[in-house]
């Protein structure tokens, strides 16, 4: 595994690195609209930006412009990945770089607009970066760092997310102006074999989580016999804690379409579906618009680019079932049935939608395709670890200072992810405990994995999986048993019930975990959990059940002490399991003020003047009323 750790530096050594200066990643800049003198304003209006208040900002910007007799073009953009600084607003005036402002609110908006649009400077307090387009003569602003040098972005390599948050998501022109559909234009001049060969060279593997080589999947589908073939995109991003697909769907929908069209051309598919979860209404709206634009420009539909090749895509809206992320279940759901997995073979490549050969890839996989076709497989393989090439997006969340969506070459270590990009832990004094990879199907990796380069193999050997790329950072306030219970609860809810090992195995495990978190665990429970886990993993019908025990197994593997502590000492060191908390008064901190006495509903708190308070554990109901009341934090 030692060799795999070099991922972070591989960027510099990549063969293609020579061609592009500091980094070879395709940096995208929206060119200044010709003949336009008006300032350009971009507002981060993805789901997350809107949640942080971006729609109100748009109205305020309009109002400000009107009040000052100015005009500007306002564009909505998707998510640039910087969730911790939302809402984001970019402003550009002619001849100068585009400046990104963070945490814009009604408080600082007027100041930013005044400085930028009236004074001709940029508000240094709110700006975090400027995008200096090397193709245009732009006079940079003093004292504002280059966008790509910002600590959060510095270590990232953006291929999938290169346009997210940069281009107007309503505009196919922006996409075309930033190299869009170049991949398709090149692909239609290549043979199917050549395209598949290029994908093979790139080493691209399924980004949905399982990591199956994409070229092989395409080859199977191409070689399958059938009068009609389907190229399907799995956009049912159900893993809680993962939202990279949403960012692509909202921020750069055409990159997905382009990947799908190239794929369809390579395997000879005529029809396509994008199966998108209904929880992403904005993504569905944007996708529908993108489909219309692509058809209008001749990239989709009949006789694409005059080649005689025809392919069209329909969006299928999910109806809320996690298991539909599993490919067979997804196919059933597309066909309007219960989304249940089936026994394989036959694989979808031979019998998929409506019984026809079908290829299914994830959003992120497709979003890589155009760039690989344009730059070549070797260029893509220049990044990443030995076994997993290219980049991977991760949804970095939990207890880190800078949560967000990050794209890094595979092989980047967990430490680089958490500390360099994530900015370290939220609370200074509360240390890192574990990183949870892959959501309900993944596992928690403890501190000893900090230096491990992240790729499919290293995560698997640690007992976790890459999954779709959700990384939740846990600190010492998070209870590992409770975390395992949480995921099991999710799986129990989402298990489709078709096969017994998954349906009953997960329910049994949940019962045991609940018992442990309630302080009623027994030592033999640990062995039982291991037994049921093994059985469920080995015998479940589909991926959901086969990986569902992972959170439990990693907890038992790396945090067994904590589980035993719950069972034997009836103690939860993270103070998270309600039934296992015992509040005590810290004598050195108690000032004997007595403020904690009145709120106690059961009189469990005993206090007399000038005496340290005392909590009677027999009558304490752990309501926390005294903890809240104490101004000296003397009750823990």
């Amino acid at each position, binding site marked *: 595994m030692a060799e795999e750790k070099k991922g972070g530096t591989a960027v510099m050594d990549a063969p293609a690195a020579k061609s592009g200066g500091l980094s070879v990643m395709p940096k995208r800049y929206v060119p200044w609209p010709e003949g336009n003198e008006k300032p350009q304003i971009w507002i981060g209006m993805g*789901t*997350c930006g*809107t*949640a*942080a*208040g971006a729609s109100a900002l748009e109205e305020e910007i309009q109002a400000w412009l009107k009040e000052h007799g100015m005009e500007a073009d306002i564009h909505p953009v998707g998510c640039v990945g910087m*969730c*911790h600084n*939302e809402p984001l607003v970019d402003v550009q005036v002619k001849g100068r770089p585009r400046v990104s402002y963070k945490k814009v609110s009604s408080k600082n908006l007027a100041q930013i607009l005044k400085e930028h649009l009236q004074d001709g400077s940029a508000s240094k307090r709110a700006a975090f970066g400027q995008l200096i387009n090397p193709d245009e003569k732009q006079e940079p602003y003093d004292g504002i760092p280059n966008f790509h040098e910002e600590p959060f972005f510095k270590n990232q390599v953006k291929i999938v997310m290169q346009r997210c948050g940069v281009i107007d998501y309503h505009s196919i022109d922006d996409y075309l102006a930033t190299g869009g559909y170049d991949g398709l234009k090149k692909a239609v001049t290549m043979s199917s074999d050549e395209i598949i060969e290029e994908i093979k060279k790139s080493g691209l593997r399924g980004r949905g989580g399982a990591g199956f080589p994409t070229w092989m999947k395409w080859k199977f589908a191409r070689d399958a016999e059938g009068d009609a073939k389907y190229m399907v995109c799995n956009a049912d*991003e*159900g*893993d*809680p*804690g*993962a*939202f990279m697909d*949403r960012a692509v769907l909202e921020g750069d929908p055409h990159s997905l379409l382009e990947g799908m069209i190239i794929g369809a051309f390579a395997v000879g598919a005529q029809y396509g579906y994008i199966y998108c979860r*209904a*929880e*992403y*209404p904005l993504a569905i709206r944007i996708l529908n618009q993108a489909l219309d634009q692509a058809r209008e420009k001749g990239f989709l539909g009949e006789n694409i680019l005059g080649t005689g090749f025809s392919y069209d895509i329909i969006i299928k*809206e*999910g*109806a*809320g*079932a*996690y298991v539909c992320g599993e490919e067979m279940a997804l196919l059933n*759901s*597309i*066909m*309007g*049935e*219960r*989304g*249940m997995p089936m026994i394989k073979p036959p694989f979808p490549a031979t019998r998929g939608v*409506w019984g026809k050969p079908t290829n299914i890839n994830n959003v992120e996989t497709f979003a890589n395709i155009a760039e690989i076709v344009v730059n070549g497989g070797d260029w893509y393989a220049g990044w990443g670890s030995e076994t997993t090439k290219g980049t991977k997006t991760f*949804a970095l*969340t*939990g*207890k880190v200072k800078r*949560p*967000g*969506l990050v794209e890094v070459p595979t092989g980047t270590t967990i430490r680089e992810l958490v500390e360099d990009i994530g900015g370290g832990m939220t609370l200074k004094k509360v240390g890192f405990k574990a990183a*949870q990879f892959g*959501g*309900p199907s993944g596992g928690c990796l403890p501190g000893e994995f900090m230096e491990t380069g992240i790729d499919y193999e290293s995560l698997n050997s640690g007992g976790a999986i890459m999954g779709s790329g*959700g990384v*939740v950072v*846990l600190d010492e306030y*998070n209870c590992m048993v409770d*975390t395992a219970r*949480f*995921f099991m609860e*999710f799986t129990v*809810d*989402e298990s*489709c019930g078709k096969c017994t090992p998954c349906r009953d195995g997960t329910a049994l495990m949940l019962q045991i975990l609940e018992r442990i978190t309630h302080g009623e665990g027994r030592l033999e429970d640990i062995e039982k959990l291991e037994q049921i886990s093994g059985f469920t993993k080995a015998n479940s019908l589909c991926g959901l059940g086969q990986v569902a025990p992972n959170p439990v197994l990693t907890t038992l593997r790396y945090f067994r002490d904590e589980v035993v502590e719950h069972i034997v000492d009836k103690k939860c060191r993270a103070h998270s399991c309600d039934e296992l908390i015992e509040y005590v008064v810290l004598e050195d901190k108690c000032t004997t003020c007595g403020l904690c006495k009145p709120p106690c509903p059961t009189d469990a708190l005993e206090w007399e003047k000038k005496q340290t308070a005392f909590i009677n554990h027999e009558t304490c109901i752990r309501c926390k009323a005294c903890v809240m009341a104490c101004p000296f934090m003397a009750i823990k």
Partner: protein
Amino acid sequence: MTAKTEEQELDLTRAYEIAEEEYGKQGPIIRVLQKVQAEYGYIPPEYLPEMAEILEVPLAKIFGALTFYSQFYTSPRGKYIVKVCVGTACHVQGAKDILDRMKDELKVGAGETTEDMMFTLEPVACIGSCGLAPLCLINTETAANMTPAGMAGKIQAIVEKESAGVAEE
């Protein structure tokens, strides 16, 4: 009780039309259910036998799909849908406390609707904005970085707004 009588008087003409439009097309069940729900806010159970007949598919199949997906509802829902995200990122940032507080405030369990048909409380798994956890949704309005007290305040504001509206009428 009032909800019940309304249900019986429900005009299902549009729902029948939807099924007829989809008749003969590939895999119609989910699409019809989605459209009917978009029209009525929920799927009236009494509609299902007729739907099966129009589409010429077994009722069991429709019922199977209906109960399988979490986004189909068979009873009317509140004017305000309060969604509390309980996905991983929100969970580790304390979503459970918010959900518990909401249950107390609204006096309903998860997935239930208040008697006055005003609020439906719904825990959801991941809205996909994990960087802003914990997250809640009231209808389509997102509330980021929420706290139990913050959500309680929002509910209170709606209650006040609604009761003021009733008084005006």
